[in-house]
């Protein structure tokens, strides 16, 4: 039997510099941590920050270079396993930014850096590696790479969720994550193996060509779509594959939950967009799906409605802020999925834009929880009473994040929803838009339950109302997120352009 293997050329790897830098950073941070025997934690911290900034600089440079050249349709890497194109460039920047602020904020977190914690350095090293893995997810254009990158993100996440080894909650969260993660990836793999069997191809455009030829049985293909969608929905925590999400977010250390709620989800969306739009639709602005017999847009639309409604309704009755944010992040996945079903480039660009603003506001909300947890050692809503007045500037920023998550102007979250709704209504999915709009009214109630506790409720007699002293770095990072959340709500031309460009320059 003759094996058909492409031997990749190493020169492609120069387009892969940010990922390579992050991998090296991971090794250096890990070894550095070993050398200082986990005592001088600033070593892995500094290495990670430096590595992320360097990788970010290269990613920006690559983006600019691609834009200057007028076309950024992509450079394939390692044969056809990966592609660095406009969309990959967008997600690279998003992930590096999210990881950078998380690493900075984790430095001040008691959960990560508390006196009795071991292996503090590992957190930084793992975050860096997670970033690299997520970037590969956004670049994969082959079933093998898709699987490997997803598993890489998964494996690192399992370890990070169980980071607080001494905490039973953390270990338990991690176990749930592993078990359900493994089974969902097995289900997805099964679908992938059948898809490979039906099309004889691994790379996405090969699969598409086989589908166009029309030799594939529609029913079998529907089974495959459902199986693969199951695995991907698990990654983005869409109903009915969401059940791990609240437990993991609540059990994991809050900085870890913060990056989980943003990074792997965004990576999952990147992967879904690339996979579905290169294999099952004729490009980003297809208008119709490729194989007419399989109405996967309707399937995903139903999932979208179920996800946002479930997330919002369950979030209503949460009393733990962290758990509430977990359910809210499920609801936001529902909003994001709306853009996915439209078969239009505006729909995809609106997903990217929403992911951008979601990253800002959701990280901000989680970080505020971290900052408060340092002092109160609690995430219960009842302990938040009067907290707004004890640290007014941080409280005001939290209000910005929560209002933005609700989707109230003039904050970025509103613009994200506006762009999504515009794309949805343009494609005349009216019921989807109406359900989503009503859902955002529901979400107002629970987001503002937090605001109410922070500012409105009268503290019980004898409650400590002394001002809280937050670490200066916490103010810096919160402002790094709050200012763009406000500014993007008023001036979003540039970033909308970036999202449009990223989708416009998505290579096949």
């Amino acid at each position: 039997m003759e094996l058909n293997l492409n031997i990749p050329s190493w020169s492609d790897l120069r387009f892969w510099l940010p990922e390579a830098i992050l991998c090296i950073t991971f090794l250096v941070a890990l070894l550095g941590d070993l050398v200082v025997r986990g005592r001088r934690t600033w070593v892995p911290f500094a290495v990670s920050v430096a590595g992320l900034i360097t990788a970010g600089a290269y990613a920006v440079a690559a983006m600019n270079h691609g834009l200057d050249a007028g076309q950024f349709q992509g450079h394939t890497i390692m044969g056809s396993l990966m592609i660095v194109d406009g969309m990959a460039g967008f997600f690279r920047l998003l992930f590096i930014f999210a990881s950078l602020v998380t690493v900075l904020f984790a430095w001040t977190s008691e959960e990560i850096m508390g006196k009795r914690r071991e292996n503090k350095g590992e957190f930084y090293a793992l975050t860096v590696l997670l970033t690299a893995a997520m970037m590969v997810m956004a670049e994969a254009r082959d079933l093998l790479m898709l699987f490997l990158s997803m598993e890489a993100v998964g494996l690192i996440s399992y370890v990070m969720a169980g980071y607080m080894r001494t905490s039973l909650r953390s270990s338990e969260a991690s176990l749930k994550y592993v078990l359900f993660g493994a089974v969902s990836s097995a289900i997805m793999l099964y679908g992938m193996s059948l898809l490979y069997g039906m099309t004889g191809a691994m790379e996405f455009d090969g699969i598409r060509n086989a589908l166009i030829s029309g030799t594939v049985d529609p029913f079998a293909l529907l089974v495959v779509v459902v199986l693969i969608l199951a695995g991907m929905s698990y990654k983005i925590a869409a109903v009915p594959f969401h059940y791990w999400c609240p437990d993991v977010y609540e059990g994991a250390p809050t900085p870890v939950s913060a990056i989980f709620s943003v990074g792997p989800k965004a990576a999952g969306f990147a992967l879904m967009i690339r996979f579905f739009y290169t294999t099952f639709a004729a490009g980003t602005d297809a208008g119709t799906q490729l194989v007419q017999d399989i109405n996967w847009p309707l399937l995903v639309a139903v999932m979208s409605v179920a996800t946002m409604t479930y997330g919002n309704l369950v979030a209503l009755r949460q009393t733990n802020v962290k758990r509430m944010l977990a359910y809210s992040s499920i609801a936001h996945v529902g909003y994001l999925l709306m853009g996915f079903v439209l078969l239009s480039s505006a729909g995809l660009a609106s997903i990217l834009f929403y992911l951008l603003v979601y990253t800002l506001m959701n990280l901000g909300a989680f970080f505020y929880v971290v900052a408060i947890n340092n002092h109160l050692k609690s995430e219960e809503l009842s302990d938040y009473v009067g907290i707004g007045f004890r640290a007014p500037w941080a409280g005001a920023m939290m209000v910005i994040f929560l209002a933005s998550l609700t989707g109230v102007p003039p904050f970025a979250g509103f613009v994200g929803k506006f762009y999504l709704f515009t794309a949805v209504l343009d494609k005349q999915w009216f019921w989807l838009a109406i359900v989503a709009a009503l859902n955002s009214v529901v979400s107002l109630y629970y987001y503002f339950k937090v605001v109410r506790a922070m500012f409105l409720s009268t503290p019980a007699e004898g409650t400590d109302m002394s001002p809280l002293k937050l670490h200066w770095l916490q103010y810096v990072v919160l402002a790094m997120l709050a200012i763009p959340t406000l500014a993007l709500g008023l001036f979003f031309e540039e970033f909308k352009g970036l999202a449009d460009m990223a989708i416009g320059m998505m290579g096949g």
Partner: protein
Amino acid sequence: MEITLTHYLLLAAAIFVTGMVGFIVRRNAIVMLMCVELMLSSVNIVFAAFSRFHLDGGGHVFVLMNFAVAAAEAAIGLAILVEIFRRRRTVNVDDLKTLME
């Protein structure tokens, strides 16, 4: 009887379903992990069979990679289980309810 592609696929499907059912029915975390391994093996069979069918090396590569990933997954899963067993003296997932509301 000649062994055809269909036979391989049926075998794989049977193993996959066995693993799936086992995962749902059993409450012992170690058994659950083993069931997942079973599911992954069935995927390997499908890939290997199709690789031969299409005379394409991609499927074989996938199988090899899958081995590595499955091993890593099992390693992490077991490490976490050991940690939990040390404290709780149980690996029954129904007993692990700290996080439930």
